């Protein structure tokens, strides 16, 4: 396995140690070790059903691991709820966009804004409008979220995650079902947010987009991590080629 080009000096944001999850008799994630440091932009790839989304679900409190430990800022986070992970500045988007459909775009943004401790309406509204402006959605703030286009829904979901002021953001298939122009727009947005100091873990099947975006690639197959390194290192990894070839 290739070594990961981690930013050794940067503080650890989130870490999985021996993370395991099974659904009935199926082992979805098997003793996974994964660490994300401040400022990293990590791509998490692998064939369908290899356990990427399950990993994200565990690392954001949406699924309880069967075994293993999760640390956020070097502090144990085992058994915490999804809202507790959000409060610890761990944000996420979903594989299938999950919005509050019959609430307005602005209200979608205000939910995480006001869920933060000591947040005020004025402050949350101001931050929401700033993020909507950044995402190019400010003209739609009164529209019900269900009436947005698929691409706009993806952007709104990203915006909602940004309202948590996350230090690490897990994006589950942000480019799925998105046209090439919007895909490029999302890449630019992620790069800008990364430049501000946020860390990302991006899961997607669009290998070209992932290669353009990330510094580090983690590859999973059959629930286990099979490679962790730079794009170049992973590209030449025989085990990765075999996994994608289905051997």
């Amino acid at each position, binding site marked *: 396995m290739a070594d990961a080009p981690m930013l050794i000096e940067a503080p650890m944001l989130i870490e999985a140690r021996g993370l395991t999850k099974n659904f009935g008799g199926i082992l979805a994630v098997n003793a996974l070790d994964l660490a994300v440091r401040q400022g990293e932009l990590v791509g998490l790839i692998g064939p369908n059903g290899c356990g990427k989304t399950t990993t994200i679900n565990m690392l954001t409190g949406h699924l309880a691991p069967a075994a293993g430990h999760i640390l956020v800022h070097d502090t144990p986070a085992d058994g915490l709820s999804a809202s507790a992970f959000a409060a610890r500045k761990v944000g996420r988007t979903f594989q299938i966009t999950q919005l509050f459909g019959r609430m307005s775009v602005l*209200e979608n943004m205000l*939910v995480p804004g006001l869920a933060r401790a000591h947040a005020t*309406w004025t402050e949350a509204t101001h931050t929401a409008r700033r993020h909507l402006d950044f995402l190019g959605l400010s003209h739609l703030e009164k529209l019900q979220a269900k009436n947005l286009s698929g691409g706009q829904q993806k952007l709104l979901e990203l915006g909602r995650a940004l309202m948590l002021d996350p230090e690490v953001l897990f994006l589950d298939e942000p480019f799925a079902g998105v046209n090439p122009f919007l895909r490029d727009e999302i890449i630019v947005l992620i790069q800008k947010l990364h430049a501000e100091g946020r860390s990302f873990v991006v899961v997607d099947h669009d290998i070209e987009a992932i290669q353009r975006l990330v510094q580090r690639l983690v590859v999973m197959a059959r629930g286990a991590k099979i490679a962790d390194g730079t794009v170049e290192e992973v590209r030449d990894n025989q085990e990765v080629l075999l996994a994608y070839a289905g051997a």
Partner: protein
Amino acid sequence: MRAAQIGLGVALCVLVLAFPQLVNAYWLTVAILALFYAIVTASWALLAGYAGQFSFGHMAFVSLGAYTSGLLVMSFGLPIPLGMAAGVAMCAVVGAGIGYTCLRMRGPYLALFTVAFSEVLRIVIVSENEVTGGSGGLEVTPLFHTRSDAPYYYFGLALLAVSLGLMVWLVRSRWGLFFRAIRENEEAAAAAGVKVVRFRVLVFAISSSFAGLAGGFFGHYIGILTPDIGSVDQMGLVVAMAVIGGAESLYAATIGALLCEALVEALRSYEQWRMVLFGALLLVTIRFARNGLLALAFQAVRQRGLRAVVPRKATP
């Protein structure tokens, strides 16, 4: 336009305040019962319409609040306001317990669980004959010792105003936003930092408290409590009132309850056919106006208002 709205509001207030002087004793009783149903329906709308928790056991909390107050007043000589407050507290605690127990339940499972709770409570009341009076009923001290029902009307009106005011304030607060987020998507709400468990339990406790308050008022007005108050039939009536009015608006649900109670009584001469008509109205609402008939009416009034304000373009 603004002056017309103010004029209409003032006229409505005068009509509502003068109502006991304008109608006979029968219609005053109907109005008091309508106020009771309005509080129950609004609190159910808070739970089901805003937070998406489709409970079918809300009338059980009305019953619990009524019996708690009635028993404390009759057995321990507690003043009625304290008895009613105890009923509210009891409903808050049991409501929180039900909310916590139902955390993993959605849709039909939650409805079935709450129906079962409702029936269990009703059967306990029937069975504990020595304490509750069983099917024969429990006689309860009236709230006012007057010949006229007017004090009940004004008290009910005040209870409705305060309850509705508190519920409106709640749904406009951040808690209301979180309730709606949970209704829309619990997983997304959790990812957005909303403490889903806490708010699901809270909405059950709060809405049950209002149901308990209405129950206490009902018991001390009617003067006799029977287990049927918490029956599934009664619950069906409350759901129908909320759905016809509009379960996702507290105002629509409240007005829906007031109008439905008045309609059911106005059609009394048609005997069982009035319930058929009521059922048909419910079916039409569900088929053609899922947000309630009043929501449609509000929308039409708004559009008409806009047309009145915005001048039409001159045709060439």
